[in-house]
């Protein structure tokens, strides 16, 4: 009997280990947004945003909706991965619906994909990828509220919400609205930089320093749209420098100068300069992670000396470990400040549409905006961790008491920002970058090591310049985009197979280039 009791006591212990935490969780309480009163009202949002943002907004929105409308609403999140993963999933879902209805989407009240909204991922993704798919609903927002939130509809040339107009020039309801502002920058570990004898990086070019070899933490642009946007900033900085030089050396009004063919040639050269800088930065990478939260973690842990990250990732990590372990800086006049949008998906109707509009209302309200930046414990602030994102509503900047960070993107933005007209090559660039930096990683590292071993500094610099001069032009990429669009439109080939083949071809071309440069180091 005692032996049997002893044997089965283990089972009781297992049961206790399973039930105990659940009971403790219930006793300690949680942030369950559905707790107040319980609710069946639920809004489903697909997002790449991290859990800290999801938790805080889930709880805050439930409270806000209870107070304003008398019932709490729960937010349920789908997190299939990064922005590209979300776009693929949505594209697949809607394509299946179109295929089942003769190529067109049926009326909205006949569509139910089980997802109501898409939130986060950058304005380029919403404007140039999701909107053309025809899957974003016009948001019926009060124009007065829009003017109240956005007294200026743009920030240094970047639209803060979708601003299409009809044929008469009247504004159409926006299909996406910015919920907060994002910037990109450099993160570095001052302690490790000192040990490596490198000055803290201040510009993108500083990251090309060969002393950073195998010490940078970077994210894969085919998985992380924030990484892709940061890399695009490097290219746009190059193009802006080339444009500035062109304007300095040619006389005439900007509109006239831009019409000159030499202007496009100058932009091409600027684009190449940006690509070169990126290649040298990539050559210094330890590896490329799928997750954009990995670089701040690597830098803070001392595994990498520096990296590139979205602003709030850098700031949150800096707060956790202290500035001597990780510091975030936005390169002066070289980084974009862009909105992070929210949109309602096609097919959201009835009660769900009403709730979706309420969520947008909350996001744009002062409490919803302050939640991005207040310290934990402040009235209206987050429960656990400061989110450290920049509000997009101008009026909240008048009172910054209780803020985790004291900055104002509306003041600091100016001169340089993301130029929509220069984003034309962005759709294909991530896979071209990946072909050079990731697929040909061994060849790139081999060539870089050989170059760094060359004794003559002039020869070394010349070889690095040659290495970074990838055999690809802006025109090549533009033509590839046109070809991709054609294949998608006429279904002459499987688009996925075509893209995979294109990436293979780029990788082969770049590998040959790296091998050729590596061979030139043989003379020493």
């Amino acid at each position, binding site marked *: 009997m005692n032996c049997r009791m002893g*044997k089965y006591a*283990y*089972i009781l*212990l*297992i049961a206790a*280990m*399973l039930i105990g*935490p*659940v009971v*403790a*969780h219930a006793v*300690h*309480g*949680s*942030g369950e947004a559905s707790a107040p009163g319980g609710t069946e009202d639920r809004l489903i949002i697909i997002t790449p945003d991290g*859990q*800290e943002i*999801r*938790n805080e907004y889930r709880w805050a929105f439930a409270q806000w909706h209870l107070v304003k409308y008398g019932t709490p609403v729960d937010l*349920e*999140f*789908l*997190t*299939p*991965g990064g922005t590209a993963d*979300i776009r*693929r*999933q949505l594209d*697949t*879902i809607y394509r*299946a*619906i179109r295929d*089942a209805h003769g190529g067109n989407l049926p009326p909205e009240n006949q569509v139910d994909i*089980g997802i109501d909204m898409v939130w986060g991922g950058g304005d380029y993704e919403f404007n140039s990828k999701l909107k053309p798919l025809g899957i974003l609903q016009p948001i019926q927002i009060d124009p007065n509220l829009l003017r109240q939130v956005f007294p200026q509809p743009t920030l240094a040339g970047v639209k803060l919400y979708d601003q299409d107009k009809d044929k008469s020039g009247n504004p159409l309801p926006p299909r996406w609205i910015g919920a907060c502002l994002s910037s990109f920058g450099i993160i570095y570990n001052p302690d*490790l930089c000192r*040990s*490596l004898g490198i000055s803290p990086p201040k510009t993108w070019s500083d990251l090309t320093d060969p002393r950073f070899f*195998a*010490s940078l933490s970077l994210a894969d642009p085919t*998985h992380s749209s924030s990484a892709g946007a940061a890399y695009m900033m490097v290219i746009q900085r190059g193009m802006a420098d080339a444009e500035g030089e062109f304007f300095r050396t040619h006389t005439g009004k900007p509109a006239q100068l831009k019409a000159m063919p030499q202007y496009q040639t100058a932009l091409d050269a600027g684009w190449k300069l940006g690509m070169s800088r990126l290649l040298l930065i990539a050559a210094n990478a*330890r*590896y490329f992670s*799928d*997750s954009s939260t990995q670089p701040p973690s690597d830098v*803070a*842990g*001392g*595994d990498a000396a520096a990296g590139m990250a979205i602003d709030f*990732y850098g700031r*949150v*990590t800096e707060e*956790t470990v202290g500035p001597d*372990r990780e510091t975030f800086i936005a390169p002066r006049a070289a980084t974009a400040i862009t909105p992070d949008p929210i949109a309602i998906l096609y097919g959201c109707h009835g009660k769900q549409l009403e709730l979706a509009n309420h969520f947008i209302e909350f996001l744009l309200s002062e409490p919803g905006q302050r939640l991005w930046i207040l310290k934990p414990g402040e009235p209206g602030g987050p429960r656990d*961790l400061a989110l450290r994102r920049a509000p997009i509503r101008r009026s909240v900047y008048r009172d910054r008491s209780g803020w985790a960070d004291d900055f104002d993107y509306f003041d600091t933005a100016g001169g340089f920002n993301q130029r929509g007209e220069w984003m034309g090559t962005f759709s294909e660039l991530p896979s071209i970058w990946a072909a050079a930096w990731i*697929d040909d990683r061994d060849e790139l590292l081999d060539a870089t090591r050989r170059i760094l071993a060359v004794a003559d500094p002039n020869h070394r610099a010349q070889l690095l310049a040659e290495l970074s001069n990838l055999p690809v032009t802006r025109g090549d990429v533009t033509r590839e985009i046109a070809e991709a669009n054609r294949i998608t439109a006429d279904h002459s080939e499987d688009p*996925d*197979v075509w893209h*995979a083949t294109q990436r*293979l071809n780029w*990788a082969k071309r770049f590998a040959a280039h790296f091998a050729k440069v590596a061979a030139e180091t043989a003379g020493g």
Partner: protein
Amino acid sequence: MRLSQRAVHRLVSLALYAFFAVFFLWPIARIMSRGFETHDGHLTFEYVWLIFQDPRLVRGMFNAIVIAAIVTLLCLLIALPLAVLSVRYEFPGRGFLGGMMLAPLVLPPFVGAIGVRLLLGRLGPLTVLLGMGGGAGFDWLGRFRAAGIILVEALHLYPILLLNLQASLANVDPTLEHAAANLGASRWTVFRRVTLPLIRPGIFAGCTLTVIWSFTELGTPLMFGFNTITPVQIFEQITDVAENPLPFALVVVTLVVAVTLYLTGKVFLGRSYDSATTKASVASAPRKLAGWHAAAACLPFVVVLALALLPHVSVILTSLSAPGQWYRSLIPREFTLAHYHAALTDDLAIPSVTNSAIYASLATAVALVVGLGVGMIAVRSRLPDRGFIDALAMLPLAVPGIVLAFGYLAISVGLKQQFQQRLPLWLNVQEMPVVFLVVAYATRRLPYIVRSIAAGLQQTPVDLELAASNLGAGRMAVLRRITLPLIFANLIAGALLAFAFALLEVSDSIILAQKEAYYPITRAILELSQRLGNGIYIASALGVWAMLLLTITLLAANRLLGRKMGAVFRV
């Protein structure tokens, strides 16, 4: 009309065939069809050919095979000497050390990877220990990323080989070795030319399990950020499942490689329930060691144990470390229990425990019913296809979890495309993955339960069941009142193991659970490990809890099964 026993067995076997057809063969068939079929239904090898043309994917496959081979070799090098020492010799502490050798099984390797990543950090404890912590440190993982994966996997998997080798060694007829020694062969020659060939089936059985497991492991390379490996490359494409045929082609190639590895091991093994293994006709008495001989015998156990417990210790220390305080130091500079408190209040952590407990319980119940059916057919019936049914039940060992999970995902997405809004919620894995997770866990853990039940049925004389039948008891009464009570310990032990490993299943959880509300523990740990701030510490706290649970479960199973425990982990 009372059915004959044969008829009942046949009905049960048909039900089993239906189960395997729907939950095992259909997902694999779905993958195969998408990997070899164009959009308009024609057969094509283009997609598979494209896999072999893509250097990134070829490199991924190469890395997966090489890492699996190195892990298996390392496991063999660790396990073989330990097995020989523990079976052939007796020395103080043998029992305790032998039991502790199974310690690695209590920690899912991808959780151990969290700790090992910190241990091998550029400015981490290893660097400090080697006196390099003052400067720029040494980037172990930057230079030898795969080494971290190999270390974690080898230290987790060697117990499986150890159990197989111990069982094989115990079954070797010592008279053969004595005869060789009497003919003048040295101890090493006897081992090399008599013992090793006799235990070869055990070596191949353990190596088969190890190499397939390592080849298809997803969680550990994910944690190390090692993306150029096939399982991670498959995982990266799960959002493209509906339209893109390339992920299916990659899964097909993975499946073919894994099945080839399994069949290779099976050919060398050739074991069945009917035939006895090479059982010793005389019991082999272990040689007693004393003095420094005994100490020398303990030494490899202590060294291996110290290395094997590194991931456990590092996860525990991470869970107790104040954020950012394990930096340029051997142990954290500051300790805290705050992460355990945070885990208790976190909206992701504890709800995932509830989810996992529910899924694992349901899966265990399903696996018990199916496993009992397989056991009865394989051991008690005289059906000509009983061996085939047994082999079907063991096939989940050969088919990687990532492949099955991918297949379920593809089935669900396909049904969604076909039925749109008419599809019931429980069939839409992206909305509600519960059913698919339960089925995936049940299928994957079925071999443990079948093994355990079959072992129990083999030990239970059929005469007792016949006697009860002769006295007028119906078949259900015989099952309920004679058979089940007699194999109760085996049922419980198999259920415990299946429950515990289902609770901490990695590949299925990561691929199928896409909605936070349905996250099981392992998905929650992955999500937490990527959260900024204190996420990695909460993940470690949850990992420590998982470690304790698995420890208690294994102890319970060991208590119930005794020496038969090893049979559960054998092919």
